[in-house]
């Protein structure tokens, strides 16, 4: 499903954050990527999500070699991947109501007709009930907003889901609820998962296998 081969990536010339890293996620497989903060695991996740162009190496997503990243990535490839980030506050447009937040990818890809059915279905799947969907981001808690962000990531039915520290800011019960929602989706769709995190107990419990990264060698 996802093959990262010899990826080198970073933000400044000559100072790679990720160097010559390979990682593969098979179809339907859940892989945990474990490492301390600053080891470059989030950068690798961004490369896998086509959000960051690597300096070297190849990304093969669902059998297609990736040539373009970010807004240049072809839509068909981009929508193969769903991403959930660590901080829901930073990844949600504060002007949107939760319903519109979840529906945003459908609007962006010209699939408005599916909005009503799909949003209600997902809201139920992630446990957002009552009048929560009509509220703005500032009117809900971090946990509720992250539930909406997960629903948004699932709305286009991605075949690969990337969760970058999805639960790092959440309490134990919300963590368990979100992981259960991800797993329910994966059971239904056979989607693959790349879960990035620093909580070994969580990733071991969640994923089929966990890849450990050491701290970066360069200071």
């Amino acid at each position, binding site marked *: 499903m996802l093959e990262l081969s010899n990826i080198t990536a970073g933000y400044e010339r000559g100072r790679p954050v990720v160097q010559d890293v390979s990682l593969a996620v098979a179809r339907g497989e859940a892989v945990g990527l474990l*490492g*301390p*903060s*600053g080891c470059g695991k989030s950068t690798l996740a961004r490369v896998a999500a086509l959000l960051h162009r690597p300096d070297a190496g190849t990304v093969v997503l669902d059998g297609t070699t990736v040539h373009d990243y970010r807004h240049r990535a072809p839509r068909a490839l981009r929508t193969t991947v769903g991403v959930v980030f*660590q901080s829901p506050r930073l990844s949600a447009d504060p002007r949107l109501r939760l319903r519109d937040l979840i529906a945003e990818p459908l609007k962006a890809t010209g699939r408005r007709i599916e909005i009503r059915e799909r949003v209600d279905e997902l809201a139920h799947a992630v*446990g957002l*009930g009552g009048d929560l969907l009509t509220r703005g981001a500032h009117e809900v*808690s*971090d*946990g*509720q907003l992250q539930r909406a962000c997960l629903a948004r990531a699932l709305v286009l039915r991605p075949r690969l889901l990337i969760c970058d*520290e999805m639960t*790092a*800011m*959440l*309490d*134990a*019960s*919300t*963590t*368990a*609820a979100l*992981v*259960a929602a991800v797993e329910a989706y994966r059971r239904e769709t056979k989607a693959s998962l790349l879960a990035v995190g*620093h*909580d*070994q*107990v*969580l990733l*071991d*419990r*969640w994923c089929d296998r966990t890849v450990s990264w050491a701290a970066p060698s360069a200071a």
Partner: protein
Amino acid sequence: MTARARSDRANPGAASPALSMRNLSVRFRMRDGGHVAAVADTTFDLAAGECLALVGESGCGKSVLASALLGLLPANADVEGAALLDDGTDLLTADERSLARAIRGRRIGLVPQSPAAHLTPVRTVHSQLAETVRELAAVPRKGLRLATRAAAERAAFPADHLDRYPHELSGGLAQRAATALALVGDAPLLLADEPTTGLDRALVERTADELRRTVDEGRALLMITHDLAAAARIADRVAVMYAGRIVEIADATRFFGEPGPRHPYARGLLDALPERSFRPIPGMPPELGKLPAGCAFAPRCERADALCGTRPRFDGRTACHHAPAEDPSRA
């Protein structure tokens, strides 16, 4: 001010606790005329050399409690009760002038939630730490550089990173810089608001151990957290908050080990951990503006019955109609 002493909670060893919280309630007046009860009727004592972890889901009122202690609530907050320091100072009635000059930093040190945002982005760690040392410790001008280094060292902040700006620090080092700032004034009471959020496991443990060390030096630490692993590592006692109320206070060893929590919510929270059953508590916490009449946890509780239509009284240990009966091995 109703300062009811709860004899079963008082620490017999200490003369007067470092912090004595008595019936604290915080209500926010809303624009539509309604009220949101963010914290209700909260009573506990915290002794010197003790760490109390206040745990609960996000939005349960933990951080409002911290803001109340520091006098940092917005203007639409109504506060009742008392929060007494060991010399009798009531934090809730102290005016801004004495809070600023005599209390914040000197009597209470704050270890903030997101250190990267707490630090001033355009100044180096050294410059911020030196300013704090100059303000809070009577250090002659010549000794400032040495005193600043010493302050950094107390929080294990590496001296060769002092000239860096906050954005050049990793999450762990930013946390230590913030902790160093909190320790400068040698305050007897430390307030840590989610000090381990966003840190990786190794750093969580190191931060917790460093905070524990300051407790073992005789400070009192109120740690507000949703990280149960960090709480288990550091706390002497655990207070569980749900929908603005403390529903259980327990000895940490008994809470995390045997016999475990007594309140169904606390049990559910522990059971949700990936090292336990990894099962979420069904539903979500109630809106603080629309609390049910009886027990706020009843709609999510498998043991709820007709009795739960009335709010259970907090008996010093638990607020639940169905908590297990007294056990003989009570501490």
